[in-house]
């Protein structure tokens, strides 16, 4: 914990009910966050067993200075991904980081399987495994409503929960954190479901005296001002990430209709501007972030004659508008929000769910599967059918949806149609078809996410494409993000938290680290993650990329698989060099 030498780790064994708290003085070399979580995952995971074996852990961790500086607001979850079978790493905002720090824990390790549906209630030193039988089966939003009333800590509490998809172990089930944020990617929800854990509540009332007020507050104020008084964060607050919908489409980089096209003719109708004009009702923030990038959109739905309407509010972002909009050919903001509502309440990752349905649609068009299997005539733009299909998917309605719930890669391999199953190493792709750096970045990225190394951004910023330069940039970015993620800084603030700022923030709170030491920590963490991936049997050179990526032109033209291969090989060499370094 802050100002203390030891990292405080809470171990929860669901099988025996044993609760253990360890003060680990050996973990400071990983700083915190993804570093500590990687180490704890390495210590507790069992690579020889399937991802959903009861023995497998869920690790949550915050950073050394979580909650006391603007935008240091995230919590990292690490696990073996049931979707990809290898490294699972996901980040959520909301109140969780603050709640964990007030409960007094740097990290939590959850192992075993409960004997009956349960939820975990953490209130400082009091940790209980409680009966969740009456709330098992509930939608994600309703669970939250019940737990808010039955658990203490209003205003400084975080509630994690899964929906029906997590219970059914849909491999890309998500965990909802505080209504509007999620551990979305790579199937943490399925892992919770497999352990019969419906929810986790976290609260506490720990206080921490500031050691050097002057230094700390000076540093806090400087960062706060650069957040609120410069334009560094403005786009995230104003229109939010959805500002990119139209521009990415115009560049020819927006995967549309299962990436049969690289731009969406109706992009303007689902642009950030249109959402803001038609649906935006409020903005919210994660605790400790003055930006407020969470954009809440509202739509109303008629459910009966006699002017009977219900209103629904959900959070929207670029990735959701891509996967549940353009990718499915949907061109109305209300309808995109409706599909977001479906993934919210059932508890599925929005990107993976959208990609799965896009694959199902094309499979139906190509006659690879029949309507007897999909149960619905899925066609691009038909929201009503997609809404129903999301419910079928979360419930694993029949053999087809059972298979689709294993992930798009699995479904592609089972039914045929692998060539247009939009996934990389088992993870459904985010909304970019920018070029080589994106594709290579997704393949080599520790969790196959656009957030690993921002390949999409490298493609857009390199004036003239240079293979080696692109590979080096991807590598350096992934390495630097190991450091940012060890502090668990919101990556929207990556340009704000330069090395200089990070050092000032750390130094003002007693972490007397140097720039070189931060580099060493980043390398140590990246090496650890690469070793974890090796143990789980991953080799980027073995990844089979779907043909679709090479048939639909990217914003930088048609891509050649030979270039991708060369770049992956080069990147792998760089990883070997890192692993050979003595750190």
């Amino acid at each position, binding site marked *: 914990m*802050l100002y203390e030498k030891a990292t405080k780790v809470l171990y929860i064994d669901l099988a025996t009910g044993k609760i253990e708290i360890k003060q680990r003085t050996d973990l400071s070399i990983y700083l915190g966050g993804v570093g500590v979580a990687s180490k704890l995952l390495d210590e507790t995971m069992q690579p020889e067993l399937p991802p959903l074996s009861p023995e497998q852990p869920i690790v949550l961790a915050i950073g050394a200075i979580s*909650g*006391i500086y*603007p935008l240091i607001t995230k919590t990292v979850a690490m696990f073996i991904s049931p979707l990809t079978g290898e490294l699972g790493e996901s980040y959520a905002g909301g109140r969780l980081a*603050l709640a964990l720090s*007030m409960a007094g824990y740097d990290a939590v390790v959850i192992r075993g399987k409960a004997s009956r549906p349960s939820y975990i209630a953490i209130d400082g030193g009091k940790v209980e495994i409680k009966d969740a039988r009456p709330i098992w089966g509930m939608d994600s939003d309703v669970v*939250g*409503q019940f737990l*808010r009333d039955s658990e203490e800590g*209003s*205003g*400084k509490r975080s509630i994690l929960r899964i929906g029906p998809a997590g219970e059914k172990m849909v491999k890309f089930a998500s965990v909802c954190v*505080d*209504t*509007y944020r999620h551990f979305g990617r790579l199937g943490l929800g399925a892992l919770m479901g497999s352990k019969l854990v419906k929810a986790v509540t976290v609260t506490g*009332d*720990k*206080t*921490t*005296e*500031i050691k050097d*007020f002057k230094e*700390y*507050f000076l540093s*806090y104020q400087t960062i*706060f001002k650069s957040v*609120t008084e410069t334009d560094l964060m403005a786009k995230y607050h104003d229109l939010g990430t959805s500002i990119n919908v139209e521009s990415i489409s115009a560049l020819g980089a927006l995967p549309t209709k299962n990436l049969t096209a690289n731009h969406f003719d109706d992009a303007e109708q689902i642009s950030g501007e249109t959402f803001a004009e038609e649906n935006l009702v*409020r*903005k*919210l*923030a*994660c*605790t*400790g*972030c*003055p*930006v*407020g990038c*969470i954009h809440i959109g509202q739509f109303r739905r008629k459910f009966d004659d006699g002017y009977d309407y219900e209103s629904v*509010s959900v959070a929207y972002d670029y990735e959701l508008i891509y996967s549940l909009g353009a990718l499915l050919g949907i061109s109305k903001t209300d309808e995109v929000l409706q599909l977001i509502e479906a993934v919210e309440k059932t508890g599925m990752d929005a990107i993976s769910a959208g990609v799965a349905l896009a694959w199902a649609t094309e499979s139906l068009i190509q006659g690879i599967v029949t309507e007897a299997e999909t149960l619905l005539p899925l066609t691009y733009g038909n929201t009503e059918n997609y809404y129903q299909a999301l419910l079928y998917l979360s419930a694993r309605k029949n053999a087809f949806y059972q298979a689709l719930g294993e992930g798009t890669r699995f479904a592609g391999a089972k039914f045929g149609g692998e060539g247009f199953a939009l996934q990389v190493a088992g993870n459904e792709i985010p909304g970019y078809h920018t070029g080589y750096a994106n594709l290579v970045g997704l393949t080599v990225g520790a969790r196959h996410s656009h957030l690993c190394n921002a390949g999409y951004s490298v493609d857009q910023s390199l004036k003239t494409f240079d293979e080696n330069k692109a590979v080096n940039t991807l590598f350096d970015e992934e390495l630097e993000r190991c450091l940012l993620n060890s502090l668990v800084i919101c990556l929207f603030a990556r340009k704000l938290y330069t090395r200089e700022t990070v050092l000032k923030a750390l130094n003002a709170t007693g972490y007397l680290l140097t720039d070189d030491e931060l580099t060493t920590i980043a390398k140590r963490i990246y090496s650890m993650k690469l070793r974890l991936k090796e143990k789980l049997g991953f080799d980027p050179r073995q990844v089979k990329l779907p043909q679709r990526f090479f048939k639909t032109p990217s914003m930088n033209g048609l891509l050649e698989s030979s270039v991708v291969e060369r770049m992956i090989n080069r990147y792998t060499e760089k990883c070997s060099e890192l692993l050979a370094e003595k750190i």
Partner: protein
Amino acid sequence: MKVLRAIEMNRCIGCFSCMITCAAVNQQDHSIMKSAIRIKTSGGLTGKFVAIVCQACKDDVPCAEACPTGALVRRQAGGVLLDKEKCVGCERCVAACTVDAIYFDLDTKRPIVCKHCGVCARFCPHGCLRLLEEGQ
């Protein structure tokens, strides 16, 4: 002389910057438990945010009336200032405040009372909190 007012809570994004800065500046603590202003949700995050903070009572001041030692000194513009020397930590002020805006610090055994310094308003990114002239 000025008083703090939570005037535009519809615009609150729930960032808690007010609480973080109040606790840091006034109590030299990182924990929002030490803040004199509290942001609460009514009905979860889908509901509105409310600020629980001193209402700057002026003529009738329940907390000062309840204080047996005269430790809560009335401010001219409204509200009170805490005289720590006189306070015996009886918590009567906490019970007396109708809007529950006085918090009891379990570490120091003294109440945490808003002194209307306005630091929270300075760090409010949406102008929900303002330090206003009395009667404004």
